[in-house]
């Protein structure tokens, strides 16, 4: 018997209802406002401005690149965190996991400053790279992708780690008894089994990278046509006093996010094992 099937014996206290409704309004109200105050007749004109199209293009391109980089680096990390194939997590794995959590709870602007300290002009790693190999610190879209990856990769890692933990490890044993080596099992069994989790993690990561502002603007700065993503362009329009443009571009960002989330809607709930 699930707990929810128990009939309520008491009515919810009135003050609780009032606070709950207030909380809901605070969450829904701004979204409602942005739709109601949208400059619908001007939408097409604002969105088709060169600066807006540039920002949208940079946003989509860098978010896709950050998702790709997160998959490349984050998938092995999530396999390690999930303790594949042994299923045990040692102390070192738990320490690694808390480091992966840091970007999630860190204020994005602090993340940006940290990236500057590491990879910016004269940074901890960028200075030796410049001295020894003549490598310039990352600027342009590369800097945007690095900042977005820093912020968004943990979402991918945790989504995939959850999928691995949710998968039945006996599949791995069955594959092993059939003669499959650990690396072949990863490719032929584990990855296909967790494919929905990988897709969900990639979607979350993309959505987070697309919306990233704080770390990215701090590390990559906002250069129109080069590093200015859609969130930066939105902030810029608002700072210049063009609220219509800010709202119009925000709706574009919302639309893209909604499309991404809808595309993977069915993947959020872990698949029930058959």
């Amino acid at each position, binding site marked *: 018997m699930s707990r929810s099937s128990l009939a309520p014996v008491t009515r919810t206290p009135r003050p609780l209802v009032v606070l709950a409704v207030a909380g809901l309004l605070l969450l829904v109200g701004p979204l409602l406002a942005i739709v109601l105050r949208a400059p619908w007749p001007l939408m097409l004109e604002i969105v088709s401005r060169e600066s807006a199209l540039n920002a949208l293009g940079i946003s989509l391109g860098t978010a896709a690149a950050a998702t790709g980089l997160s998959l490349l680096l984050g998938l092995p990390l999530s396999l390690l965190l999930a303790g594949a194939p042994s299923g045990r997590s040692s102390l070192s794995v738990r320490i690694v996991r808390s480091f992966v959590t840091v970007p999630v709870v860190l204020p994005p602007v602090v993340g940006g400053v940290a990236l500057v300290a590491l990879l910016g002009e004269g940074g901890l790693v960028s200075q030796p790279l410049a001295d020894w190999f003549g490598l310039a610190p990352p600027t342009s879209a590369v800097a945007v992708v690095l900042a977005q990856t820093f912020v968004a990769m943990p979402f991918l890692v945790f989504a995939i780690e959850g999928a691995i933990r949710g998968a039945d490890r006996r599949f791995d*044993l069955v*594959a*092993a008894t*059939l003669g*499959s080596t650990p690396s*072949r099992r990863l490719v032929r069994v584990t990855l296909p*089994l967790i494919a929905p989790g990988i897709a969900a993690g990639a979607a979350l990561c993309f959505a987070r990278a697309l919306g990233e502002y704080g770390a990215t603007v701090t590390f990559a700065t906002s250069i129109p046509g080069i590093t200015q993503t859609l969130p930066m362009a939105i902030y810029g329009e608002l700072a210049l006093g063009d609220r219509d443009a800010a709202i119009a571009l925000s709706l574009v960002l919302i639309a893209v996010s909604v499309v991404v989330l809808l595309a993977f809607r069915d993947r959020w709930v872990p698949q029930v094992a058959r």
Partner: protein
Amino acid sequence: MTGLTATLRVRREEFALDVEFSVPAGGVLGVIGPNGAGKSTLLLAIAGAIELEGGAVSIDGVALDAEPERRGVGVVFQDALLFPHLTVLDNVAFGPRERGQTRPAARSLARSWLDRLGIAPLAHRRPGGLSGGEAQRVALARALAVAPSLLLLDEPLAALDVEVRDAVRADLAAHVRAFGGVTVVVAHDREDVAALAEQVLVIEGGRVVQRGTLAELTADPATEFVRRFTAGTSPSFPPSGSA
């Protein structure tokens, strides 16, 4: 010494398994015991999925101590565990393919196994749409397709509906006999043991409490569990949900 010889000592937190047994070449050993007695642990230890704290396993005098992928052991679990992303044919072809056969060769071998088990029409179906009995036949074909030297069955009939159970049991018994290697089958039902196993090993609390034929166990049960099991009152119900 031909056949299977096993001395297994495993420690897992509160639980310890300490058993010793052998099965002659071509023999079928049934393993019974109450829930939590260590039946599944015993199978996992033989398969190499659990490290031994002590003891050894050998088959036909050759030590079985390599990684699971090099042990030549076939396993079938009660919930079949067919790879959901592969067709029935590719599930059965998986082992031969992983052992170095070309895809056409692996598939043709898989097809012959599907034929032998009478499930050739299922070849291009996905596991998701199979009935429990069909899935279990596919799982058996998959395990046998790599010609293992040892077959481990973990309650292979426990997940099946009563209507199909008799048919699958009869098929399973026939194929286990035709297999020719050593089979160890964990069972929770007197009927299953009677149809499949020649000798029965009873374990309780991680230790062997009795060994003999079903008739011997019935005539002289060593414990209350054995008495109720042989009387057919299914003492280990409800069947364990997972291994």
